[in-house]
């Protein structure tokens, strides 16, 4: 069955693009809405442990500080490597500003040894903070 394409008034072959543009706009709106623009800098080198029974995050506490602990024991905040004294200083400032009940989120690699996590926990205790949250993945 031979189908004839519509010819425009100039005699050229024309494609009906209005439907395609509609779909394209819908796709863009979808991606714009679902793109997480406010997402913090995450350390991509860290492979999180799985905790399938953990509750999904409904709302994040904006006061929370995320401390990344890599498999090798390197510790960083927002992808900037820090020494333990720098971390203690940052936490002290944060505790003064936001109060001692602010949560500290530890993003530890699944294969990091607890010794490195312990160092972070000790720094947190020193500053008087006591709420620790371990980041994990729900499968």
């Amino acid at each position: 069955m031979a189908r004839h394409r519509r010819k425009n008034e100039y005699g050229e072959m024309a494609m009906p693009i209005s439907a395609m543009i509609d779909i394209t706009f819908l796709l863009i709106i979808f991606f714009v809405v679902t793109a997480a623009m406010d997402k913090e800098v995450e350390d991509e080198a860290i492979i999180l442990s799985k905790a399938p029974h953990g509750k999904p995050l409904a709302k994040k506490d904006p006061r929370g500080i995320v401390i990344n602990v890599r498999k090798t024991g390197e510790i960083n905040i927002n992808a900037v490597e820090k020494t333990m004294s720098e971390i203690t200083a940052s936490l002290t400032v944060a505790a003064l500003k936001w109060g001692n009940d602010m949560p500290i989120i530890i993003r530890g690699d699944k294969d990091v040894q607890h010794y490195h996590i312990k160092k972070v926990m000790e720094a947190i205790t020193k500053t008087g903070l006591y709420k620790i949250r371990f980041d994990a993945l729900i499968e």
Partner: protein
Amino acid sequence: MAGKKRRKFALKEGEMPLSAMIDVVFQLLIYFVVTQKPIIENTLLTVDLPAPGGKPKDKPITLFTIDVNRIKQNPKEDLDIYYVNGIKWNFQDLRAQLVRTAQIDPKQTLIISCGPSAKHQKLIQLLDACTEAGLTSINVVNDDTLQFIPDPGTKSK
């Protein structure tokens, strides 16, 4: 072919030049498709640290002290082996025991003592089991009596 001329279309009155906009729209679409990441759901497992110098309001009644990586000489300990009050437990049995404990008293305080050589995954696995059971009062303490045996290629200090 070089001599072939493209015919120029004159826009009618009131018509908008759409081709540039479509180009931009497609570029935006490609950008978003490429930068889109799969949605990964995270969870935060909460533990409390004792406040320095503070006295506990109520003395917790502790039945459990779970040791993670208790063995001193074997850093490559099985991920499924824990020690409860000094007795070796398989993870599956421990999980069932935690559920039973939570059924009796969900406010039961649990102390998790973690050795320095233990993998973080092992601690998270245990915390997840506590969450599954419904236990909320969990303290993680560091076992300083055990020697730290660093994995090859990791920081030793």
